[in-house]
């Protein structure tokens, strides 16, 4: 005879049985029964954010940094709609997340009841799947299914909308949490087709100018080690997308840096001239390919992806392989000796001398890490320098949660991630306001690690209220605010395309005193204005391990992010390299 529980208790219990570590949420009328059950059971710590959007970003970053699915609990109506941006952010980057939203009582649905909103309808285009609970008894199985769907195949957020009456404490039903669930209409493919994998290896072994291009699929799919092993075995150059950074060690000589719109000169050129491209867990997004018809004109392309719909979506693929990055790389390593003996592998690696010489020449001429490509004599702090200082101060080992703008691109370019799951940013949706709540999710998961937010004075103000959450839960995050006094990325485009007409990208002296603001919440504020102060300031900030430090760093307001691919109609290699140089 199974236990009798109310719907609210079922939610609390199922999350415990699922092994959930934190619930990120915000209470309200429709979820009061659930909140009472959480209170009475005390199974799972709940993090009370200051805005539901922050709950979703925190849960999302918890997932990105740990690989475990984050959980969000919000009330109906405004609680649910506030969560939407965060759900969309997770969806675009294929991050698993389970969002429980309260709904008005079943009999009121459709009557425009107080705080009623059609959450299943509103979230439909930005979720992997959603459930509207109809019967209390279904809650455990629906929760199990939600985790299964969110985590398997190409991962993504799942919404469970729960009408208030179904969680009433007096209505108890038998509780049973299933070990596993089967969904007849959903059977994600894990393993790639062995014939295709062998074909891919054969093609790869014919390459003279190969490039491995990988994305978030390698990170989320826990395939970084295998990728590194495979690339090293064949001496392959590797480039990562914005989402894929850390998938291959950033300081390794075989790493070319990020590719795409703000990718490195050597990465974009290598792609353009490649004869074989091995793409893994990346989706040929428009920020990567530039003009698809001009994308990598001489390359045969192998594409490994968990999602068949990603293959040949924007760029035609020669050898598609549907499967997870991990299993396919495992198989590639297994089959490699069948396809090529040691002699053939040695030959292959030796024949790549010429290709590597070319790549190293590109790197020498315009690479970002060989020597500074920015003005070092301006007397102003350059944003690139600030990121280099951050890299040094944290040994390259911090969890870096970024907001969106120039600072994000500088971080992607200059913080060289050697490990996966350390670079946490909103790549697909580009959500300003992501950084601070993301750092909260990370810090909760890794209380002893360095966790920082790289942000701008624009982005940070989109969720700055979370400084209060950090106070409540004692989250000593480091906030690296690259204060350029502008919506910098917008300004850059206005400089380049609108004759520097700064339409609404300036604040007219309205910025707050961030130091005082941080202090008002009980944190430490630190102002940095000179390049020579940077290293010490960073060291000081990170030495305060039990304090949230808000570093307000005044950077050159007129710096642009380069390289920048030329659009429209440009190919991968068409780039601006500075305000005056173009390829």
């Amino acid at each position, binding site marked *: 005879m199974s236990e009798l529980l109310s719907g609210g208790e079922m939610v609390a219990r199922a999350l415990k049985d699922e092994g959930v570590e934190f619930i990120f949420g915000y209470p309200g009328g429709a979820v009061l029964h659930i909140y009472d059950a959480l209170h009475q059971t005390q199974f799972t710590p709940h993090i009370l954010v200051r805005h539901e959007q922050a709950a979703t970003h925190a849960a999302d970053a918890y997932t990105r940094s740990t690989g475990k699915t984050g959980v969000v609990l919000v009330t109906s109506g405004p609680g649910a709609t506030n969560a939407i941006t965060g759900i969309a952010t997770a969806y675009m980057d294929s991050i698993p997340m389970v969002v429980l939203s309260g709904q008005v009582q079943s009999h009121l649905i459709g009557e425009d009841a107080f705080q009623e909103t059609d959450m299943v309808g509103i979230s*439909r*285009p930005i979720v*992997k799947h959603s459930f*509207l609970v109809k019967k209390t008894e279904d809650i455990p199985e629906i929760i199990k299914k939600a985790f299964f769907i969110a985590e398997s195949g190409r991962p993504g957020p799942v919404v469970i909308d729960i009408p208030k009456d179904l969680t009433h404490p007096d209505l108890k039903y038998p509780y049973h949490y299933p070990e596993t669930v089967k969904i007849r*209409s*959903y059977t994600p493919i894990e393993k790639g087709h062995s014939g295709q994998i062998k074909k891919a290896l054969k093609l790869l072994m014919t390459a003279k100018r190969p490039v491995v291009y990988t994305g978030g699929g390698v990170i989320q799919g826990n395939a970084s080690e295998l990728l590194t092993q495979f690339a090293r075995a064949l001496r392959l150059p590797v480039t990562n997308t914005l989402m894929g950074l850390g998938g291959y060690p950033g300081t390794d000589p075989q790493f070319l840096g990020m590719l795409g719109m703000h990718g490195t000169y050597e990465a974009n050129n290598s792609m353009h001239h490649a004869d074989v491209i091995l793409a893994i867990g990346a989706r040929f997004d428009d920020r990567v390919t530039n003009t698809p018809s001009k994308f990598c004109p001489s390359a045969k392309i192998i594409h490994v992806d968990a*999602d*068949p*719909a990603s293959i*040949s979506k924007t760029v035609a693929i020669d050898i598609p392989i549907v499967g997870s990055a991990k299993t396919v790389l495992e198989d590639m390593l297994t089959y490699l000796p069948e396809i090529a003996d040691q002699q053939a592998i040695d030959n292959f690696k030796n024949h790549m001398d010429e290709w590597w010489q070319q790549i190293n020449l590109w790197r020498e001429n315009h690479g970002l890490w060989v020597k500074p490509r920015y003005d070092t004599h301006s007397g102003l702090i350059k944003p690139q320098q600030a990121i280099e200082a951050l890299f040094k101060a944290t040994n390259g080992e911090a969890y870096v949660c970024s907001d969106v703008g120039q600072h994000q691109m500088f971080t992607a370019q200059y913080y060289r991630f050697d490990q996966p799951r350390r670079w946490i940013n909103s790549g697909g949706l580009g959500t300003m306001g992501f950084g601070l709540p993301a750092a909260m999710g990370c810090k909760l998961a890794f209380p002893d690690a360095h966790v920082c937010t790289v942000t701008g004075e624009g982005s940070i103000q989109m969720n700055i209220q979370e400084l209060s959450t950090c106070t409540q839960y004692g989250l000593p995050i480091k906030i690296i605010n690259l204060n350029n006094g502008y919506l910098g990325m917008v300004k850059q485009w206005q400089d380049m395309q609108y004759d520097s007409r700064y339409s609404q990208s300036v604040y007219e002296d309205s910025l707050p005193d961030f130091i005082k603001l941080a202090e008002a919440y009980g944190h430490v504020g630190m102002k940095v204005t000179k390049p020579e102060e940077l290293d010490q300031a960073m060291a000081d900030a990170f030495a305060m391990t039990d304090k949230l430090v808000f570093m307000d760093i005044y950077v050159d307001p007129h710096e642009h992010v380069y390289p920048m691919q030329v659009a429209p109609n440009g190919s991968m290699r068409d780039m601006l390299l500075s305000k005056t140089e173009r390829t």
Partner: protein
Amino acid sequence: MTDLKRRILSVLLENEPGALSRLVGLFSQRGYNIESLTVAVTDDQSLSRLTLTTICSDHKIEQITKQLNKLIDVVKLVDLTDGAHIERELMLIKVKALGATRAEVKRCCDIFRGQIIDVNASSYTIQIAGTSDKLDAFIESLGDVNIIEVVRTGVSGISRGEKSLSL
């Protein structure tokens, strides 16, 4: 766009609330068009069978089928277009039928194997089934006859022979 072609897809869908809206939503979200859509429950109460026609390129149809397959509620899907298959659509059409046109309409109806299913002093209501082309041809054949109302169900499709779309 030279390779635009009419496609007919047959889908088995979970008979769940919200399933149809997810499928239709996918089309508008991704900018695919729907020419016609028919849907009803099957002999298995837990499943709906849906026939959908769309006009698109080879590349698009590949994307559409892949995206549809990604919907959790889609159990199975087949593109009937290129295989041997049967398509039927039902039309109810009400026309003015006075004087000489009464006989003319009746004749047309017989040629197309339609049935007059409702009659009054000034109009006929005709039921006619067949391929969409046939229904178009019937409307064409009515010429000057005054059409009062046309109701078409959209296409239902099934493959020929032993092949089937089932669990």
